[in-house]
């Protein structure tokens, strides 16, 4: 059975990217693109955090003061831990690069990408924000699981955080969330990124890894075709990784 799945996956990925000269994406594809970009807004003090973020002057004002993207340190320190979590999840303090945004593409809903879309357009988490997630890893995971269960969605910002803090203990939880709707293929992407980043050997020698990450032609736009065989194989591998890699 495993051999059959492997063969199917390899075949699908070989034929996955021959449409460089793409046409306008279908409405279904565009809707899925929009769906992929939704981030989670944690409920912990969200209104208060939004109000504080609205006061941050990112561009120089008439007062001649320099703009900043960072919340005033005193105001930040006055936030509770959960409110800090919300702040970091909704307000990236640094910038992202010119070219890391993937242009819209065809049939996005039929693909499993090797990389996640950009969560914050031209912004990104700062070093201190990433450190917050890492330093408070267990608490961050617990808060994310609470929000995900409540929303029944894994927001794009959460997906990036899960990969950044290498939250491989979330694998069964992520799979159960995926199985509820079997719509959010970026959860499968997160599973593959976790396997790749941990150099899980069965994944590293797989056709998926070759196609998405290791091949000379692989790029940040690389993807596998979505089908039930590929879906099942990714989930099985991720569970094997979780059971053996704890």
């Amino acid at each position, binding site marked *: 059975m495993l051999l059959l799945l492997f063969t199917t996956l390899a075949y699908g990925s070989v034929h996955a990217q021959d449409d460089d000269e*793409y046409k306008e994406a279908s409405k279904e594809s565009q809707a899925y693109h929009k769906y992929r970009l939704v981030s989670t807004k944690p409920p912990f003090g969200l209104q208060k955090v939004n109000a504080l973020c609205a006061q941050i002057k990112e561009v120089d004002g008439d007062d001649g003061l320099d703009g900043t993207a960072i919340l005033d340190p005193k105001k930040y320190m006055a936030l509770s831990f959960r409110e800090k979590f919300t702040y970091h999840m909704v307000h990236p303090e640094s910038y992202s*690069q*010119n*070219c890391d945004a993937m242009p819209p593409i065809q049939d996005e809903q039929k693909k499993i990408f090797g990389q996640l879309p950009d969560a914050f357009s031209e912004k990104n988490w700062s070093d201190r924000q990433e450190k917050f997630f890492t330093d408070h890893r267990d608490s961050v995971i617990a808060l994310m699981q609470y929000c995900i269960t409540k929303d029944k969605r894994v927001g794009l910002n959460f997906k990036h955080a899960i990969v950044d803090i290498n939250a491989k203990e979330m694998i069964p939880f992520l799979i159960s969330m995926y199985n509820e709707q079997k719509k959010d293929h970026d959860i499968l992407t997160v599973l593959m990124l976790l396997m790749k980043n941990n150099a899980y050997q069965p994944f590293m020698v797989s056709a998926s890894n070759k196609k998405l990450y290791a091949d000379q032609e692989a790029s*940040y736009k690389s993807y596998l075709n979505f089908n039930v065989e590929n879906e099942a194989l990714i989930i099985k591998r991720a569970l094997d990784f979780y059971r053996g890699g704890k």
Partner: protein
Amino acid sequence: MLLAGCSFCYSQANNNFVLVPAGKYTIGKKGYLTNPLRTVQVDSFSIAPYETTNRQFEAFVKATHYQTDAERRHDALVFEPGLKEFEWISDTTAYWRYPNGKSRGGIEKEMDHPVTCISYHDIMAYCTWAGVRLPSLEEWEIACRAGTTTDYFFGDSGAFIGQYANVWHGRDHMMADTMDGHMYTAPVGSFKPNAWGLYDMYGNVFEFCTGKLLPDEGNTLAHARGGSWWCSKNACNFFNSYDIGRVNIRASFSNQGFRVVKMKKGKG
């Protein structure tokens, strides 16, 4: 290479801007949502054959004592080999004189390299002082294409990009790549020009343009084109005639720069 060097000297000495005649030009890429294939009508404009250099930016700073965003905000993003794809590190010491931070050296011997680690906001100040402006998104592409309608001004295959552009040839950014002699920026005009004599339209530094892709874009967003020394075919791959990048107007990266267009007399 020797020819390119001579041309550079001549151009700098004679302020040898390239005149692009008024007319209708084909730009974009078939079916490309962010830059569809279309014909545009533009007025004539004169564009610099090279990216703006450290020497030129230094003249501006000396004359105006201008402090860049990176100097005031200490939030520049820099690169060193060993980072994951699209990962940049914050360096509070970085600004245009030390575009990848003080620990990675200054520009004293790189005055003919493109200026980097400057924001769109800084560039606007330079342009005001120098009496020049940025090209629009359309003007940049017209100049880059030099009459071609292919993905690259040298054809549809990117296989020859190394002859025309300082880009990243490594598979990823974990190891230093000096395959073309340059890990970071190269002196402007080091590679072959396009058919209109414009150098480094691809690679070296991302070049800021004016204009929006969408009418509802926020005022903190700017666009840049052409890819940079950081860009590889596996990550970014924007060293072509159709892709359009986006970046915050206050962001200072060590792969962002610009080239200018002459102001027309009587136009502010």
